[in-house]
């Protein structure tokens, strides 16, 4: 149904510059996907908070104040204080940074590695495909959390700029096979498209075809995938932190804020538990909705 509407209607329109096209695309997205727009805005706000945490957060997230332990929310501490007298709101703001850096980096890492694996697998086929697929099978036969848990536990901690690089790997590795699966399936379709044959017939090199011709056409499923991964990572990080293999205190992390002492102080200090939980839920919610909206916009046929 979509196919028939396309050809002539757009033919008459002047192309416009690239930037303009983007703007128009965003405008269209906003009109067609109000929920997507809302979620994008939420993400922007969180992103803003994370990036400019230094200015947004009223307090230093690490600063303890032993005179102000477990204070309920008030005008000075909007979300109360925790068991060390640290300002919870500030920790939430900085926690956004942790969540987003970890979420985005590990999703990108897993998405890129898996995507390359998938597209290579699909493009070359044959034994390359067989070997890579078996490898993917192996990784895929373990639940994400199990794999992440074991990898995180095995690798231990290695912080770079306040972000645990090993944790990033631990989360990215389980995503790799998933991305490889989805991208391979999509790439198999793209692979049979005549324009790929045309590129081969034009004598282009394999890397040029894979990266220059196939990859851009896989951007839609890939973006959707990565936004879903980002949502999942935030949940996964929380779960891993809860299990004790995630982020390490005192790095502000939403997941961490939900484990340990906070759990036990629920009835006395519910704010220590409620706010981080809400922060996680809201962010994950926004990323998931955005993923949905992207999928609907970029490629209505792409569902998995």
């Amino acid at each position, binding site marked *: 149904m979509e196919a028939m509407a396309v050809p002539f209607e757009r033919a008459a329109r002047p192309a416009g510059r690239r930037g303009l096209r983007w703007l128009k695309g965003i405008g269209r997205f906003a009109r067609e996907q109000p929920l997507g727009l809302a979620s994008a805005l939420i993400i922007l706000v969180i992103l803003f908070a994370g990036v400019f945490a230094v200015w947004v957060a009223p307090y230093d997230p*690490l*600063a*303890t104040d*032993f*005179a102000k*332990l*477990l204070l309920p929310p008030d005008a000075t501490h909007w979300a109360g204080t925790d*068991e*060390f*007298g640290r300002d919870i709101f500030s920790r939430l703001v900085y926690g956004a940074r942790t969540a987003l850096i970890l979420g985005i980096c590990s999703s990108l890492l897993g998405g890129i590695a898996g995507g390359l694996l998938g597209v290579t697998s699909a493009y070359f086929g044959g034994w390359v495909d067989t070997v890579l697929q078996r490898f993917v099978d192996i990784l895929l036969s373990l639940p994400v959390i199990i794999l992440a848990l074991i990898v995180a*536990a095995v690798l*231990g*901690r290695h*912080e770079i700029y*306040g972000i645990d690089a090993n944790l990033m790997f631990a989360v990215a590795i389980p995503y790799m096979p998933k991305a490889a699966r989805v991208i391979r399936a999509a790439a198999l379709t793209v692979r049979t498209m005549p324009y790929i044959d045309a590129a081969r017939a034009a004598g282009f090199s394999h890397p040029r075809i894979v990266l220059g011709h196939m990859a851009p056409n896989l951007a839609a499923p890939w973006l959707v995938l990565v936004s879903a991964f980002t949502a999942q990572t935030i949940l996964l990080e929380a779960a891993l932190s809860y299990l*004790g*293999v995630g982020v*390490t*205190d*005192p790095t502000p992390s939403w997941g961490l804020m939900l484990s*340990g*002492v906070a*759990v*036990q*102080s*629920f*009835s*006395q200090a519910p704010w220590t538990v409620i706010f981080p939980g809400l922060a996680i839920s809201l962010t994950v919610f926004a990323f998931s909705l955005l993923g949905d909206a992207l999928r609907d916009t970029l490629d209505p046929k792409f569902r998995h």
Partner: protein
Amino acid sequence: NATPQRGGNLVFAVSLGEPATFDCHAAGSLNVMYRVAPHYSTLLQIDAAHYPKVVGDLAESWTVSPDGLVYEFKLRPNVKFHDGTKLTSGDVRASFERMRNPPQGVLSVRKELLADVASIETPDAGTVVFRLEKPNVSMLALLAQPYGCIYSEALLKSDPTYPAKKVMGTGPFKFVSYTPGAEWVGERFPDYFRPGLPHLDGFKAISLTPPSAVNALAGGQVMVDFRGVSPLEADRIVSTRGKDVQIFEANPAISTLFMAMINTQKPALRDPRVRKALALALDHWEGSKAMERSTTLSVVGGLARPGSEFARSNAELEKLPGFGRNVDAARAEARRLLAEAGQANLKLTFLNRKPWPFLGVYLIDQFRQIGVTMVQEQVEDSQFFARRRAGEFDLAVEYLPDYLDDPTAKWSIFVSHEKNPANIARYNDPKVDTLMEEQSRIGDPAKRLVVIRQLEEYILTQGYTLPLFWGRRTTVVDSRLQGYVPAPTNYVGQDLSQFWIKR
């Protein structure tokens, strides 16, 4: 206090994980002791109510020769094993021999404690004689170690590893069943040698995660978790159970010290000025307030347990680096020392185990205030110990849990690294070694105390370690449960024979 009533089952939580073995000789872990202790007797024991007084368990009476080399114990008559056989001195000797010189395939993790024993003799079925090579002021306490379970000689003969798999002793309770991850069940041993004991019909130790143990206490599903809870958790339990629970506090501290050991092999930390600066950064007194609410570690003290015979008064303590009340001055001094040492921008890591993230939080916060940045690395146990031993850290957590306050065993980790690889600060300091040796040989407690104080002060001024906090034990006990004594260690009084349930 009413008269004890017979009957009832004690259901308690064990929130420490699963036992690796059932053998007391091979393990000192509380997760073993809480489950296994009710099934065994020891030769001597430490009276929980009058800690650290040593009383007899299987031994009815004993004499020590004036030169301190011969210890003779008279055993109680009519002690029976759970399999019905009678306990003789042979069983006691076999058990201690097993600890001292474990046969092939048997592990004894504390055989060093009995290093001074030359031989064990059994002149008759009711007498055991320990001959020492040299006198040891702590010998009785060592023989009272709660891990010194007495096993059946006959069974050991057929299988020296039986205690690892099977529970059979002379304790007040007979072993019934163990479901890994779920519960450990014991029942009253009717032929227990103390008449009328135990009061309980049996006990059930339920395996719970720490948060669910608190939930279970709050829900009245367990009567006690001996390990204790934080005051915050106690509040939560009280808020749902009210008068149905009683709170016990072991005062002022239990015999567990948490420290941050400083790796003296790291270039930056080789400089005593830097180490001293780190010590000066700490404000124990304020920190204690934060720890007090939400953790079980909050008592300020030096290397000796506050409240013990070896501890110094607060006034004396305040003279040691890091314990002063004028924190601002101390920190200014710390910054000066750092600058002097050329380490104004010091960056450190703190290697920590899983359960105590707050120690890192505290340390990092304190160091920040003198311009030292630190990150905490919390890793799984095996990595923790491997890295700690390999010296792959700047600061690492060290802890001294024990049933005793006596420094001889407890401070052995401060002996030079080349003598004791367990010294993770990795320094070699003859002065520490000499003082350690010296204090263990002085019979006069007062004189000994002087040396001990000197040793403590020396270690702390050298900045080999930063004592953090001593453990506190807040135990929530169901009001119906009687006979609980909040001893200043987690290890003693765990045979459950004194407990009874009020109906």
